[in-house]
């Protein structure tokens, strides 16, 4: 089997943006993503998940580099100004290129 290079976009943000982001992914025809519950600290203070408006999520999303970069920029513009948000891109290798 062969491995193919893709980009992974990781998004850490407030849990209450989940529905919005999923809508965005679907609008942009992204075919898959993974979400884990997270807490953390950043410029917007501590997020400890102790109650509703104080939780983080971490979303991982594999796509072509172009798609991942475009998505990251769009999310940054839409939510970066006011919401707790950190994103990063990394290089990964996957087995089924057609899946992403």
């Amino acid at each position, binding site marked *: 089997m062969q491995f193919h290079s893709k980009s992974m976009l990781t998004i850490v943000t407030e849990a209450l943006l989940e529905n*919005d982001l999923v809508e965005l992914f679907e609008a942009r025809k992204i075919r898959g993503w993974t979400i884990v519950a997270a807490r953390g600290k950043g410029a917007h203070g501590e997020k400890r998940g102790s*109650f509703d*408006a104080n939780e983080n999520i971490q979303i991982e999303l594999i796509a072509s580099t172009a798609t991942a970069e475009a998505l990251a920029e769009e999310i940054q513009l839409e939510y970066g100004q006011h919401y707790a948000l950190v994103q990063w891109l990394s290089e990964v290798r996957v087995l089924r290129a057609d899946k992403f």
Partner: protein
Amino acid sequence: MQMDPVVLFFLLGLLAGLAKSDLKLPSALYDTLSVFLLLAIGIKGGLELAKQPFLQVLPQALLVLAMGFVIPLLVYPVLRLKFSQVDAASMSAHYGSVSVVTYAVGVAYLSRLGVSHESQTTLFLVLLEMPALIVGVILARQGANQAGKGSGHGWGKLLHEVLLGKSIVLLMGGLLIGLLAGPEGIKPLDRLYLDLFKPVLTLFLLEMGLVVAGKFGALRQQGWFILLAGIGLPLCLSWIGIGVGHLLGLSVGGVTLLALLAASASYIAAPAAMRMAVPQANPALSLGAALGITFPFNLLIGVPLYYQFAHWVA
């Protein structure tokens, strides 16, 4: 007078949190307890409402609804003295809306004294959740150019968010279940929703103590005005509740609870709604005041105080 044990649990959590104990309750427990409290309060309200003639409750409901719209309008100009438009608007929404747990503690307080209260107060609780949130968003957005990006959700999405938020769905759902099932139908459920209400409240308040202790640190950076607001606002707002309660001809118990509703600040529905609708507002500010100052103030001092107030007026 001995302290209500319910309040002692809050103090235990508060002290443990301030002393940086590693005591933590799982967040799934917190979520479960709030689902339970909201359902239980709703059901109890529904059972009581079933006994009331609808036409008698309607005008009362409208007046309470009006109070919900007016309170944030009164609070806003005061907060504008110190805060930006969006922050003042967001905080007005928090103080105009209500805290379900504060209400539950008030009910427990009255029941311990053996003081009865009108059954429609639960309905008032439900009605007061939302109007202030709408007013808060309008206040935040007035005059502002809302065409830009990142300035929060549109009205449709927002109303959906609020109306179908956890608090209102469970309170209203419980209310309807209570209404439809009636005392006979609910009886087999009493062991949970009635008998365990107060003991479960103790666990919830233990957790609230821990959460409030965590808020104190962030508050210190905000200066004196926030402390002043966090205590002054409930004190003043309680009198609006007392006035409206008096107008409605409520009993001392009912007036106390309406005062408490007016004085309490939302820390579940409002923060979530404001974060979606007015993301520019600093959530640490309004949540810090509502949860870090007003919540403990109402719990420890407000509840007996407003009861005293209600007595004077009666």
